[in-house]
């Protein structure tokens, strides 16, 4: 099947104030299938956000091609269809809500699409229900917690009926409760609504449940595979200065001490099993 996201040798340079070119992406080639849950991890400045912005045509490649559902992002005529197909959630929940009332904010996207009012109403109610925020439909955003604001932002994207949601560190500014809320929402969307998810994160624990983990470094993909494959490469990850989930780290150290523990442990339960089997 045709992948829903295709990147072909994507390169991108920012222009600094001094007119210098700063290379942010150095040839990324990547296919993502419909319905996949992909986590992207990597250092500060490794090009994750730049990559994310290409999926939504907020940035266009300096060279190489990005296809979203077969649409080339350089094609001006397809711009709005691409943005509707691939919705984007950003890090700071405060800086992406536009309206003074939750339901008005969720309606913002569909309103931009020029949908009839009844259709917008229906979509807004549905989207708020999916993220569990329907009780807050009339609330003002600044009264909500970070996690709730982020769920409203997700609802705002859902109301546009996207096939892909790209989330750029949506949990970075949240407390553990908010993070949990948001993660559950994202997983639900992927499992039950069949939405393709590209989730950028600094928290390794959040990448564990993905179908595929992609590790970026200096504008390139340096490692990818299932979470088990990726996180068992503790040494490689450490070399580029990344953490692994805490249990994996523990397994790595126990193994180094000579205990017979598999290196691809990702969850606490698996660790318990492994230790009991010793």
């Amino acid at each position: 099947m045709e992948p829903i996201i295709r990147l072909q040798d994507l390169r991108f340079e920012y222009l600094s104030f001094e007119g210098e070119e700063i290379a942010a992406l150095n040839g990324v080639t990547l296919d993502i299938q419909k319905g996949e849950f992909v986590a992207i991890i990597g250092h500060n400045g490794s090009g994750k956000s730049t990559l994310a912005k290409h999926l939504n045509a907020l940035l266009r490649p300096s060279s190489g091609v990005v296809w979203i559902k077969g649409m080339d992002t350089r094609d001006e005529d397809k711009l709005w269809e691409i943005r509707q197909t691939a919705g984007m959630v950003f890090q700071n929940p405060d800086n992406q809500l536009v309206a003074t009332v939750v339901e008005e904010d969720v309606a913002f996207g569909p309103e931009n699409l020029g949908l009839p009012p009844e259709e917008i109403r229906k979509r807004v109610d549905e989207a708020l229900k999916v993220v569990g925020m329907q009780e807050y439909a009339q609330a003002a955003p600044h009264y909500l917690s970070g996690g709730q604001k982020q769920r409203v932002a997700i609802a705002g994207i859902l109301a546009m009926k996207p096939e892909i949601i790209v989330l750029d560190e949506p949990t970075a500014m949240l407390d553990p409760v908010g993070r949990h809320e948001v993660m559950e929402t994202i997983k639900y969307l992927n499992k039950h609504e069949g939405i393709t998810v590209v989730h950028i994160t600094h928290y390794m624990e959040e990448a564990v449940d993905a179908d595929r983990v992609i590790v970026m470094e200096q504008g390139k993909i340096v490692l990818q595979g299932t979470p088990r494959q990726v996180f068992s490469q503790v040494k490689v990850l450490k070399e580029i200065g990344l953490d692994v989930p805490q249990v994996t780290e523990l397994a790595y150290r126990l193994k180094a001490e000579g205990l017979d523990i598999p290196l691809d442990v990702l969850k606490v339960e698996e660790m318990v099993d492994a230790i009991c089997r010793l």
Partner: protein
Amino acid sequence: MIRDITIGQFFPGQSIIHKLDPRVKIALTFAFIVIIFFAKTYVGYGLIFAYIAFAVWLSQVPVRYILRGLKPLLFIIVLTFLINVFFTPGSKVLFRIWAFKFTQEGLNQGIFMTLRLVLLVVGTSLLTLTTSPISLTDGIERLLQPLQVIRFPAHELAMMMTIALRFIPTLLEETDKIMKAQMARGADFESGNLFQRAKALVPLLVPLFISAFRRADELAMAMESRCYRGGQNRTRMKILKTTRRDYLAVAVTLLLIAGILLDSYVL
């Protein structure tokens, strides 16, 4: 807490005045302001007073809320009264104090000007007290829409108002945070003369501005990614509908206008 501050002075309620279409309310408030300046007799002002008193009564907004709007203007109102009383030329001298003449015309003029100011404030307060900022913005946008043919940026104006309303609480909260952070490092915002205090604000304003620009940048990006492309092709979830009560309000206001014009210019 700082985020509890409300913008404007909306007094939530379910009265017939609250439920009027915001477009109608704004238009009627304008008509009201204009007609205030057409009234020329005590009877005329009596009519206007009765009209606004009736509206206030219907709105169920406590009178003290309405009068609160007058407080900051008290000085200007008194000053206007005095200036008009003493400097209106007139012949029917009631009495003199030193070089000042106190005439019947002056007295009338003073009272009328005072009434105009008071009615003006009461009328506009009633509008903002009974209309939430969102419906006010909505109403303004749709009233100004016809002006878009002469390229008046009605949609942009309304969008700016909405974003301002959305971000004022966020920025206030942030100001509070920065202020506390600077105070913890020994900054002093409360003592010293005006110049010193203004200077103390610099370390507050600089981070606030930087953050506001960053927010603006991110918000623009988020709006664009949600397919925002200005007003064209855009629909709205909520459609404003005029109902019977709106026509009723218009009819009553038309009656008032007719009454004032008759009273001042025909009789």
